[in-house]
């Protein structure tokens, strides 16, 4: 366990955190402003990944794949909102959970019909392959650094939009008091569609960036979605700042835990015991963290209401 290894894992954690943030930002806004539990958010992530792969295979161009992934997910998201989610505004959360659960089953199976159940292979263009030398002397994949950079740029853009533009002001107002915003005569329908589209696009972006790193297969969305829930619960519903803080915390804790908990444990208990307990504890770490945060702040770190 060297310092360069720790730093490397820290970078991995930040990069994973950034992915979580992309998913969490959209979801927390949808939850906060539209009071809509959308379990199918993970499906949008999956759609982004698959469309990107399809685009690349069809045209041979990475850029085309990215464009298709991003724009395609935006379109799918808006169609989803129009057809399946509009009837759910104002209905209780149980109904929303059940309907979006049904959507997940539908999307997962649709993807399986179109592309099969196995993992898809995604290739990277030459300029994204390869490694970069860190100041610690070890090598780190270029692609992961790019992902990290993209995520930070998006975070900055979001910060700008939310704090400096009129749209952002509406979003913040909607997150704290949606009835008031409607009463002020703002076109709520349009605001909802825009917010939802935002979220869908971000999820698609996360998905298409995830392709080369994680397995592209049906059901991939739900694996990350539940961690995104943990992020939002820790950060507070409706708060983008909370989503960022929560995402970084969860990403770093999860990654470092998986990498170092077993060796750390092995220094205090026997190696075979650490072998069994390490991964088990590591997988539970972020949920325990969530439980701790909740017992102190039941509405998350940055409560918007």
């Amino acid at each position, binding site marked *: 366990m060297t310092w360069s290894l720790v730093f490397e894992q820290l970078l991995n954690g930040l990069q994973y955190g950034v992915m979580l943030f992309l998913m969490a930002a959209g979801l927390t806004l949808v939850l906060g402003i539209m009071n809509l539990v959308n379990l199918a958010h993970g499906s949008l992530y999956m759609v982004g990944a698959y469309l990107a792969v399809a685009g690349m295979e069809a045209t041979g161009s990475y850029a085309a794949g990215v464009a298709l992934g991003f724009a395609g997910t935006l379109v799918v998201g808006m169609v989803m909102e129009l057809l399946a989610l509009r009837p759910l505004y104002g209905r209780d959360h149980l109904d929303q959970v059940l309907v979006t659960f049904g959507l997940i089953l539908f999307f997962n199976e649709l993807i399986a019909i179109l592309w099969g159940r196995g993992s898809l292979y995604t290739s990277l263009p030459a300029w994204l392959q390869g490694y970069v030398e860190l100041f610690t002397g070890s090598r780190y994949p270029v692609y992961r650094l790019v992902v990290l950079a993209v995520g930070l740029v998006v975070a900055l853009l979001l910060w700008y939009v939310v704090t400096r533009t009129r749209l952002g002001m509406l979003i913040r107002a909607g997150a704290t008091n949606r009835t008031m915003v409607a009463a002020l005569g703002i076109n709520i329908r349009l605001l909802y569609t825009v917010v939802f589209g935002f979220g869908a696009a971000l999820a698609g972006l996360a998905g298409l960036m995830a392709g080369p790193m994680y397995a592209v297969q049906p059901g991939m969305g739900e694996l990350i979605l*539940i961690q995104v829930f943990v992020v939002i619960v820790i950060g507070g519903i409706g708060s983008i700042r909370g989503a960022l803080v929560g995402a970084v915390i969860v990403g770093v804790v999860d990654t470092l835990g998986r990498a170092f908990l077993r060796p750390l444990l092995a220094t205090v208990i026997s190696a075979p015991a650490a072998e069994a307990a390490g991964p088990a504890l590591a997988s*539970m770490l972020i949920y325990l963290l969530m439980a701790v945060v909740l017992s102190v702040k039941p509405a998350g770190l940055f409560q918007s209401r």
Partner: protein
Amino acid sequence: MTRGALFWLVVAIALAALPPIAGALGQPFYIDLVRRMMILAIAATSLNLILGYGGMVSFGHAAYLGLGAYAVGILGVYGVTSGWAQWPVAIGACALAAAAIGAVSIRTSGIYFIMITLAFAQMLYYLGISLEVFGGDDGMRLKSRSTFSGLLDLGNAVSFYYLCLALMLVAIYVTYRIVNSRFGMVLRATKSNEARSRAIGFSPYRYRLTAFVIAGAMCGLAGALYANHTNYITPGLASWVQSGDLMFMVILGGMASTAGPMLGAFALLIAEEILKGWTEHWQVILGPLLVLSVIFFKRGLAGIFHA
């Protein structure tokens, strides 16, 4: 005889008559199928207590199904195969887990509660996957089915079927008594109007937590039964998909009704069987069907029977 009592008499007789009929028709498959439906009906009944009557949208209830099954499986690995020991441990472990999870979760409400219960269930799921010694992702076969000092052979499909039938009817009856007792009234009142309940002196937290623990324990029993039914345990039992299925059974059958969970479980599993017969991609049909049923068919099947 009241309408309700007549309904249950018919149900009991019909279900009791199934094994001999299926045997005579040479279709033992149905004994297995209906047995599975009854076991999941127990799980759905337990969820109905907190969801239908208590208004607590717990999206992680399948965790107790998994935990109960693993309790049986793990004890079996260490040589404890007697059901007299395994099943109380399964129930007790689930009660404890529900107490721990509930203690944290029930302080929250609304969207938070849904996400948190889901997250904790997923935690147990990942825990199951990471335990390589018990099969990890693939799960493992039971060393042997639970034994009951020779009184009952769970390997005999028909005896096991009747045990499940009996336990299902007991679970439904116990839930019925709880729901109409003083405790049940507080639970239902808190769901109906929390501000009013607080104003007359009920502290919602303690009643909800108790209901949560009872529901978890009952589901643990279903888990133990399930492990014996499939003779196999897998982390998938605790997955969110399973939790969602349980919720659908409760809704389809009719929330806050006695027969609802059983009807919902039967309906959902029958629908699955039929769809599976048509195509391997049956979920692409089931998904939208569930969506439509929620949007249009809120009162559930029990509304038809007024049960």
